[in-house]
């Protein structure tokens, strides 16, 4: 098993931390993982993206130009990465703020109204966890329990009271897919 994933959106949407939680979940599941961010000023408002690779064998390049799965959270990222999904791969996108829908027909395109869903949630800060839930419903790469174990590692202990909210958001994301 080897999954090459790009997660891309605006800085501040939680793109990098979503990737980190996914990578940590992979680690909890005894997979090899790499997490390669775009770094620099783009973290503070421009576009941000992170490449995550989960594999049961050694991972060669952490830098890629084609992906099994793309998680796209803004228009710039859709424009940049739609063409880079491997044929037969998966593109998950949030239509919020998107004015041009994905065009590819040789890939599996999944629409997730995650931003819409945050309006019903207690905190808009769990947006990235809803997206992660949707990703895991479409691509069950790691079990929910590994994600929770990963989250526990990523979150400093003083934030551990937020774990149930995060779990709820992930489950909400999974339900958004199940509803389709």
């Amino acid at each position, binding site marked *: 098993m080897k999954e090459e994933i790009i997660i891309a959106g605006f800085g501040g949407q939680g793109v990098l931390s979503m990737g980190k939680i996914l990578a940590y979940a992979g*680690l909890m599941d005894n997979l*090899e993982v790499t997490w390669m961010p775009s770094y620099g000023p783009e973290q503070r408002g421009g576009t941000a993206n992170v490449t995550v690779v989960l594999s049961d064998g050694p991972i060669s390049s952490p830098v890629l130009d084609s992906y099994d799965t793309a998680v796209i959270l803004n228009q710039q990222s859709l424009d940049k990465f739609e063409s880079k999904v491997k044929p037969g791969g998966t593109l998950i996108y949030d239509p919020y703020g998107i004015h041009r829908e994905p065009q590819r027909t040789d890939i599996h395109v999944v629409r997730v109204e995650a931003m819409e869903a945050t309006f019903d949630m207690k905190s808009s800060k769990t947006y990235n966890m809803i997206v992660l839930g949707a990703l895991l419903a479409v691509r069950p790469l790691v079990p929910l329990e590994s994600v929770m174990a990963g989250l526990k590692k990523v979150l400093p202990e003083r934030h551990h009271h937020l774990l149930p909210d995060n779990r709820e958001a992930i489950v909400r994301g999974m339900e958004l897919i199940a509803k389709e």
Partner: protein
Amino acid sequence: MDEEVRLMKGNEAIAHAAVRYGVDGYFGYPITPQSEVLETLEALMPWETTGMVVLQAESEVASINMVYGGAATGKAVMTSSSSPGISLMQEGLSYIAAGELPALVVNVMRGGPGLGTIHPSQADYHQATRGGGHGDYHFIVLAPSTVQEMADFVGLGFDLAFKYRTPAMILADGIVGQMMEKVVLPPQRPRRTEREIAEQCPWAVTGRPAGRRPNVMTTLELDSYKMEENNLRYQATYERIRRNEVRYEEYLTDDADYIFVAFGSMARICTKAIDDARSMGIRVGLVRPITLWPFPEKPLAELSKRVKGMLVVELNAGQMIDDVRIATSGRVPVEHFGRLGGIVPSPAEVTDALKKFISRI
């Protein structure tokens, strides 16, 4: 602290490994893409556990001279920076080499020249492998390609630095510094006691006991005959290092017609390019120098007797290619492929470059 498996950035791994190795002091100044080294050390607060000093100096020039002073006392001391900051340190590095002092310097390279870019580069290869400052000197240069190696090379770097009384450098790039991977951190080692230092480093300036001649630490020698002797002694050390400490890794070279030569993160991108090229029937392998100085000349010389060509892939305009050409003495075509200024080529670009190289030669 016992051995521990964690997910972290290469820069963070350097900091954790430094504390666990029992380093005595870190002196540094922030610069992207390596600021996490200092940040992580500040968060770990090792001065409360092992007693390690962590100090943000007023500049890179101050940092390297604090390292110079600390090293003279036999302490395990280090600094880290990125390209422009490492340029500022060159005078100090030359002095540390001349003083025959062990120290560890980490360079997480970014694109230059000048202030350049914060994005990954390998353009400081020449600076690192040729000494960088003035005078005839070298230091050991280790090129990590994984987060695990970022952690491992802290210990290896210090071990070699103390073994040969020479500075060692970890020459990484923005990719290895910023990426997160699984890393096994070594168990905590105690820092050496003053007594152990005095025993292991009889040359160190530790306070003169009665009856011992003073240890004097200077790099100034106005008697040129003596200065030549000093130089011959440095060169003898470099020769021992060249003989004993060459490290490299080969990937699929046994049946290879073509060889990539690449180090650090670029070697990993080449590994993927190799898998792609082999699926198209091109027999290509990789030599990854782990020590950039001393350079693995022998394996490349051997391979040059049986392969059709070597493509040196670097995040620069062609620097390590000089060493590959020296090692292969014109026996095979050796060409370069690279991207500049912080751009990282994709595996597909590298595979394309290989195909063009093959059609040219």
